[in-house]
């Protein structure tokens, strides 16, 4: 158990290290930030001074080593635009993205799981076919378009919900959260729904596929032969087996939920990390881009790790045993 954990940890560190190189080099080839930062009328001397100040006059490998050195001191560089540490800029925006992503995930599970279960248990019903067709729409409609339609319908036409911003926030654990106030919650609904759409369809289809795979199994028939109630058969015997793939995939998808909240955040002017990264890319604010990408890498690696552990808890057959090999 311990050995396999250690092995995973080393693998994770290698992945992160490889990503630093890719990210750092990649960001360096997309453009020269000084051209954007500096006043176009500035003199040649002024230009050189800015370049030297940002450390961009050094060779790439030296910049990289400085960057790595910084990481070990918890310093991901200083934003060119805001002149603040990139990391603290991102962490400031983290709660907004986090609450958006978690709300979306909750919606996806609360809506997708029961619907998928229903569609799997009663595949011949008209309502099930309707659900499955609906999930195809959820998969294929582009998020940005659906977001715009939401605003058009619920904000402009009906006037029920605000079209953007976080609304009122309340402070909790040194961060401000929208979901703690009625107004903030009001603002959260549309973007969360928008972000949840794709994942809901995913959870729904995974659940349905799982039900159809588990139902014909002998152990389900045997459970019925024991005289168990239908509820017990479905919610214990079927659901427990079903949760293995559903938890694995939704867990992994949580990372992409955070990473790809960019689109939703832009449409609903949600001041989260996604909005920050788009702005930073436009300004070629290298340290922020690099820091953000590094955060995402670490997030994905960490999620993978957590899911592996969840997986072993759910499925007794894959417990990381010490007896085997």
């Amino acid at each position: 158990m311990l050995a396999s954990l250690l092995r995973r940890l080393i693998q994770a560190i290698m992945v992160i290290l490889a990503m630093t190189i890719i990210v750092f080099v990649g960001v360096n080839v997309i453009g020269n930030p000084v051209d954007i930062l500096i006043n176009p009328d500035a003199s040649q001397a002024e230009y050189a001074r800015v370049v030297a100040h940002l450390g961009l006059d050094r060779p790439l490998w030296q910049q990289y080593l400085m960057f790595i050195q910084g990481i070990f001191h918890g310093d991901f560089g200083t934003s060119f635009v805001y002149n603040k540490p990139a990391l603290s800029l991102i962490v400031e925006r983290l709660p907004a993205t986090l609450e958006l992503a978690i709300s979306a995930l909750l919606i996806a599970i609360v809506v997708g799981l029961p619907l998928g279960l229903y569609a799997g248990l009663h595949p011949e019903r008209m309502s099930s076919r309707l659900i499955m067709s609906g999930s195809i729409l959820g998969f294929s409609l582009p998020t940005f378009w659906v977001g715009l339609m939401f605003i058009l319908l619920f904000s402009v036409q009906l006037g029920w919900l605000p079209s953007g911003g976080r609304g009122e926030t309340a402070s909790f654990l040194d961060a401000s959260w929208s979901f703690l106030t009625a107004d903030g919650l009001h603002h959260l609904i549309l973007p969360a729904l928008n972000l949840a759409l794709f994942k809901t369809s995913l959870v729904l289809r995974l659940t349905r596929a799982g039900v159809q795979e588990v139902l014909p199994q002998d152990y389900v028939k045997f459970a019925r032969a024991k005289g168990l109630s239908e509820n017990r058969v479905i919610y214990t015997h079927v659901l427990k087996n079903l949760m293995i793939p559903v938890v694995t995939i939704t867990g992994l998808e949580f990372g992409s939920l955070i990473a790809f909240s960019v689109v939703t955040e832009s449409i609903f002017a949600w001041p989260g990390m996604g909005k920050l990264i788009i702005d930073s890319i436009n300004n070629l604010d290298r340290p922020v881009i690099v820091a953000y990408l590094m955060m995402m890498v670490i997030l994905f690696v960490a999620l993978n790790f957590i899911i592996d552990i969840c997986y072993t808890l759910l499925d007794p057959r894959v417990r990381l045993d010490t007896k085997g090999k």
Partner: protein
Amino acid sequence: MANLLTVSNLVTEFGGTKTAPGLRAVNDVSFALEKGRVLGLVGESGSGKSVTGFSIMGLVDRPGKVTGGRIIFDDRDLIGLDPEEMRRLRGKRIAMVFQDPMMTLNPVLRIGTQITEAIQAHDPMTKSAARARARDALGLVGIPSPEERLDAYPHEFSGGMRQRVAIAIAMLHHPDLIIADEPTTALDVTIQSQIIAEFQKMAEISGTAVIWITHDLAIVSRLADDIAVMYAGRLVETGPVEQILGDPRHPYTRGLIQSVPSQNQRGHRLHQIPGMTPSLTRLPGGCSFRTRCGHATEQCHTIPERTDTGTRTYRCFHPVTEGL
């Protein structure tokens, strides 16, 4: 003595609609079983013996459906019985053991959970009481240190041990009837004998009647009081085990017995029934066995009626009489 179970003219179809008949996996099957007796239901793969078992349990998978006949269990017709009533019978008075012990236990639930839930489904009691009973049940089927094994998962058991667990579960409520669907087929020969002995012991203790579904005549000869031979969805011959095995009337039964290797003389070619089991989609009209039968005549193009001699029945125009 009144029959515990009387199946008459049972028909189970797959994929039938209101206008078109489906495939008849079980076709006009009738037999009766007295309390405490063992019936061997014999036939090749696909002959409909498992579907017969599931029809009695009310567990035929969609799109299969019981479409005709009656299954009288203890004076009640199980066909069309209210689902909740049926649930109360299942596991309590009619139990079933499946073929593949690797597949019958839920891989993500502890053995203890799977036993206690079966207890509590019929006898409401506290968790600890159910657990104590589960432990005793495991001990009874010869599982060592049952207390610890309750917390184990199915994959930590061998195939034979899992089948013992399945038998323990089936016997929990001392049912009147157990349907054993080839419970030893997937096991080693040595384990087979142990499981059969286990079954006999358990059935004897609680006076349970058994329908033992198998294709293995050797097992049936050791175990059963009566035999029912099934071919392509129909019962072709039924009767007491000595009579059927010693002096079969139906050519198919005869062929089946002759195919057992020990019946053949050393150095001679093994006896075979020519041809193969017809697919249900392409059954010959009349007697389904006629295309493989040496005795078939023009008459066999109509379905032979059941001949009932009082002790045995068979469906054949040209019963074999010369013995084996």
